[in-house]
């Protein structure tokens, strides 16, 4: 059980972060289909940064500091890359779906081109094993190696990553910012009724640039966290549809942070089960329940999308999608 929850948490954190990235863009009025592409860029920049710093003298004691620096770098990279989207959507008033699709095509192409030519291989790996450098064990928190911490303690203090805490912290802080601050209210108003927002002196263009940049920063960070915690920090121009899964989480969560957290956990659980259903021993009693049920891993993989479709079918009338998302704002049309 502990193992299952630990693994689920590892999938959940990047999932909800990237879903929140989608919320920030859409609440400001920009459809961000490029989440997947931005994640790819974040994973690549993060891997490159960590690798070069590992080669350039940082040692294992400073690993957590390096991780913090890497998060900042990947957030900057994601925000920078997302400027391509906001420029096309805000300044050029171009179709946002096409812009997002273009970035989704550009990111893996650019990453694979660079990885192949600079490193002469298909996948960019970290210099040293990610778990051995960055994973936190209960001994790091001052507990005995054999000490029993219980389920919650095990979950939060053993075999975790610093990114898990930071991810959850950022998620909570930004959710509060979006709903409880003046900035958040202004941002949301630009996604609902930009004309009204403009009429009271809010700069819609700037808000949309900001919303998309925050979105890019979160997605870039999410991409790096995903790569670090699930695939040993390797960057190969692919995050296996995780950005689109985050989009599904956002829609199912009805653009609301609390719902998104719940849905993110559910989908993270499914993702985790599909990754290890054959070898998963839930209760630790030597019975591989899921393997005995014998449902293919692909079914678990598919379920989040099927569930989202079904939910969409039933709740389409009650959808809280931002009303003005996807429509370029034109001052002249006020």
């Amino acid at each position, binding site marked *: 059980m502990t193992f299952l929850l630990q693994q689920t948490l590892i999938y959940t954190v990047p999932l909800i972060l990237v879903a929140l990235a989608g919320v920030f863009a859409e609440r400001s009025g920009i*459809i961000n*289909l490029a989440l997947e592409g931005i994640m790819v860029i974040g994973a690549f920049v993060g891997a490159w940064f960590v690798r070069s710093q590992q080669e350039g003298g940082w040692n294992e004691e400073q690993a957590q500091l390096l991780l913090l620096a890497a998060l900042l770098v990947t957030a900057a990279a994601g925000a920078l890359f997302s400027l*391509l989207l906001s420029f*096309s959507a805000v300044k*050029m*008033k*171009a*179709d946002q*779906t*096409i*812009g997002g*699709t*273009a*970035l*989704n*095509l*550009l990111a*893996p*192409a*650019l990453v*694979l*081109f*660079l990885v*192949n*030519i*600079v490193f002469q291989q298909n996948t960019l790996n970290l210099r040293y094993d990610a778990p051995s450098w960055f994973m936190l064990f209960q001994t790091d928190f001052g507990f005995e190696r054999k000490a029993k911490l219980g389920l919650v303690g095990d979950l939060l203090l053993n075999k975790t990553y610093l990114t898990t805490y930071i991810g959850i912290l950022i998620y909570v802080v930004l959710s509060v910012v979006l709903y409880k601050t003046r900035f958040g209210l202004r941002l949301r108003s630009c996604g609902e009724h930009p004309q009204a927002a403009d009429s009271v002196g809010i700069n819609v263009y700037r808000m949309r640039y900001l919303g998309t940049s925050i979105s890019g920063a979160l997605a870039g960070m999410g991409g790096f966290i995903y790569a670090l915690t699930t695939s040993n920090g390797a960057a190969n121009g*692919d995050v*296996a*549809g995780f950005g*689109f*899964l985050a*989009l*599904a989480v956002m*829609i199912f969560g009805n653009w609301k942070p609390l719902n998104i957290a719940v849905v993110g956990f559910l989908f993270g659980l499914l993702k985790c089960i599909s990754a290890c259903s054959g070898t998963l021993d839930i209760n630790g009693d030597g019975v591989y329940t899921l393997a005995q049920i014998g449902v*293919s891993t*692909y*079914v678990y*993989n*598919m379920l989040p*999308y*099927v569930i*989202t*479709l079904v939910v*969409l*079918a039933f709740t*389409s009338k009650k*959808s809280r*999608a931002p*009303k003005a*998302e*996807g*429509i370029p704002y034109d001052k002249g049309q006020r």
Partner: protein
Amino acid sequence: MKKQRTLWNDGSKTVAASLLSILMGVIFGGILLVLVALFLKMPLASAWEGFRIVLAGIFNTGRNYDAGSVLTFGFNPRLMGDMLFRSTPLIMTGLSVALAYKTGLFNIGAPGQYLMGTAASIMVALAIDTSVVPAALVWLLAFLAAVAAGALWGCIPGLFKAYLNVNEVITSIMTNWIAANLVTLAFDGSPFINLVDYGKTGFTLKTSTNGVATAKLGMDALFGGSSANAGFLVALVLAIVSYVVISKTTFGYELRCCGSSKSAAKYAGMNEKRSIVLSMAIAGGLAAAGAALYYLQGDVEFSWHTSMSLPATGFNGIPVALLASCNPIGCVFSGMFMAYLNISGNQLSTFTAYNEYIADVIVAVIVYLSAFTLFFKGLMDGRRKAAPIHHQPGAAPPPAEPAREEEKQS
């Protein structure tokens, strides 16, 4: 004044805007090559070589090692034929996206429809024993099965859009990934996997092992050593049919009306729900037909572990359609252009230090810029300030603009 308008009408401006996107994309690719060469301290001559291959990849005939290993160029029938073969599925997915766009729908679901077509065509082609049923008939059945599977897959977003007003982009993304897992699930443990050749279990059997292969119709003689076959001609015919249906029939008119304004179409007594569902179904069928034409070639292996990635050919239907401004005939040319870039990329990784992904970068840049078509057109208008063409009543409105505003979920 009047003459100028006919010379520089909306159509030619659209073509000019597309060409401008292509030009800028290729220039970007060139700059990237130079930057990488500088960064990695490679000789600039290598960037120049790379750029020449990007520009004229299919005329590349390799290197002449006797003359100081210079690149040689000339007619290369193999690459020319391969370009036609690879353009076939691209033209079809391009048609798929274009047709949906005419109805005001953005078919980002082409990859899923393409996958469903792939699975259906391969399964039917391998499952029916050709010693009982003639191979040509099996080919036809496999093709039709693919079209049916793709149409079904396209229907789902169509139904959601028509009856529940759910944005088709969202549902298409869901159906894409459902298809990706469904196809892997279907092939997992099936008899269609290649267990015969060593190390090939990740692939399906070639359809030629069951004697099913697209007729060559002399294309192999014309383009020696290539995979060219009659599939390209089928795509050509389907493009012409699509053009006629869209532009010359009542049905096509209804689709376009629905694309321009759903409520106006409804007010005029058209069944706009039917138009949406049919348009998506046909789009799905076209994308899947592209998959069938590609995989029924006979010697193509399908890597069936698709649960983690979607086929690029499906997504590349979007640039094909955008470059052609959603004109079905234009899709033939833009599809061939995309295949041309693809072949150039392969030549690049074979003969230089660079790799084939530069072609994908260029495509992505072109897609990005093609969203600016309206802006480019505005620039062209600006230069001839005497002719306010964009207010000219005869000029067709940009296809998706009016529709997009209504696509929002309420």
